[in-house]
């Protein structure tokens, strides 16, 4: 039954992808990409990857769609040149054929004897209760066993935000905004119903964000998803009330401080490991009881991740939104 469901979703995924590629209307394509991500998230969920499904839904269907839409607002909505470079399909087909060729030796889906499930994976599942003692093994690996990768991930987000700030320069905005106070900077003030309802929802979104942040050790979730959720709440506020009020609630200086602060917190937790006599990112030495130390370490770094991601998302959003006013 579940297999049938999977096959159905996968086929739908392919159809959506075809539609995205074929439509010349970029707005439609972006909307379809949101659907594509949602389908992808459902497939991930069927394949037991709850954390990944949550992230894909938040990122692919949420943040990425918002980003694409704000870029579309600043550029064009139609794809003009339709130049199918047919010979370019050659490397594509080669790559695809190679992969299909490789599948014939691949382990079957769900095969418990596959090499992937033999070497380090059982170790994680076995040792996590003893060494780190949190139920969500994904969070344990993300935060501690492979915490160094997560450190890198935070800095990737930070780099992107720095790049967007450098390219779209959030700092010149104030000079430009009074010229056209009309359309988007106003938000949805004249729409009563969405505004009332949106204001009602925002506290719940923030609450849910905090839940995901601090419940990540027990269920799906963690710093990244939480940061994205809280950022989504502020972005919703900016959409409803306009850029200005949103920036008085969370000013640009606070956003920049969040971006830097979370990342610095993460590295400092890592360095604290060295100072207290362990290795870099060794949380066991943070407290006398190694397991308690791991708990503290994961809590702190997840907080760092959440704060940085929230700050980066907001700064990227404001950078795009500020361009709108020019």
């Amino acid at each position, binding site marked *: 039954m579940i297999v049938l469901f999977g096959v159905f979703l996968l086929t739908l995924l392919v159809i959506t992808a075809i539609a995205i590629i074929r439509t010349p209307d970029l707005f439609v394509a972006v909307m379809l990409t949101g659907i594509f991500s949602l389908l992808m998230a459902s497939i991930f969920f069927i394949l037991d990857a709850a954390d990944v499904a949550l992230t894909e839904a938040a990122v692919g269907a949420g943040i990425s769609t918002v980003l694409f839409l704000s870029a579309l607002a600043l550029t064009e909505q139609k794809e003009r040149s339709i130049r199918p470079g047919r010979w370019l399909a050659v490397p594509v087909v080669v790559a695809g054929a190679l992969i299909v060729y490789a599948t014939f030796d691949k382990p079957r889906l769900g095969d418990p004897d596959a090499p992937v499930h033999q070497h380090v994976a059982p170790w994680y599942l076995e040792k996590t209760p003893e060494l780190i003692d949190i139920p969500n093994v994904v969070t344990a690996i993300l935060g501690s066993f492979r915490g160094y990768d997560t450190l890198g991930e935070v800095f990737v987000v930070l780099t992107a935000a720095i790049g967007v700030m450098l390219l779209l320069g959030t700092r010149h905005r104030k000079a430009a905004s009074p010229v056209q106070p009309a359309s988007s900077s106003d938000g*949805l003030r004249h*729409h009563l*119903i*969405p505004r009332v*309802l949106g204001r*009602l*929802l925002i506290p*719940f979104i923030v609450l849910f964000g905090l839940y995901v942040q601090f419940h990540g050790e027990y269920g799906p979730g963690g710093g990244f998803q939480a940061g994205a959720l809280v950022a989504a709440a502020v972005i919703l506020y900016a959409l409803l009330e306009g850029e200005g009020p949103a920036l008085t609630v969370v000013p640009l200086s606070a956003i920049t401080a969040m971006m830097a602060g979370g990342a610095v917190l993460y590295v400092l937790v890592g360095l604290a490991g060295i100072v207290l006599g362990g290795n870099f990112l060794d949380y066991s030495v943070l407290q006398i009881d190694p397991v308690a130390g791991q708990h503290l370490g994961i809590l702190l770094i997840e907080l760092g991740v959440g704060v940085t991601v929230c700050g980066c998302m907001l700064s990227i959003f404001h950078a795009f939104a500020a361009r709108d006013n020019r």
Partner: protein
Amino acid sequence: MAWVIDLLSWVLLSVGGIFILIGGVGVVRLPEFYTRMHAASLTDSMGTILILIGIMLQAGASLATIKLIAILVFMLLTGPTATYALANAALMSGMKPNKLALAEDSASAGKED
């Protein structure tokens, strides 16, 4: 007693599914933007409500049910609002619900997708 609840939940699930199907057909077949949106909002409200209640009956009195109730409340709040916002945006951008468009055959309206 258990089978009554089970039966009820399956009835709700099936009816919800049928509503979603009808909504889907409506989006494809109805001639013009506002009527289509009406069909789409049907899946949002009736379909999801019935299915969620059906799942709640399956889950019984547990934490999952409370979460489902929360989901239901949020769906009830956001669904109609989204439909309203969409209709409002269409109206603001100059799309008038007129009888001419309704009279046109659905083939020409189908191209707008």
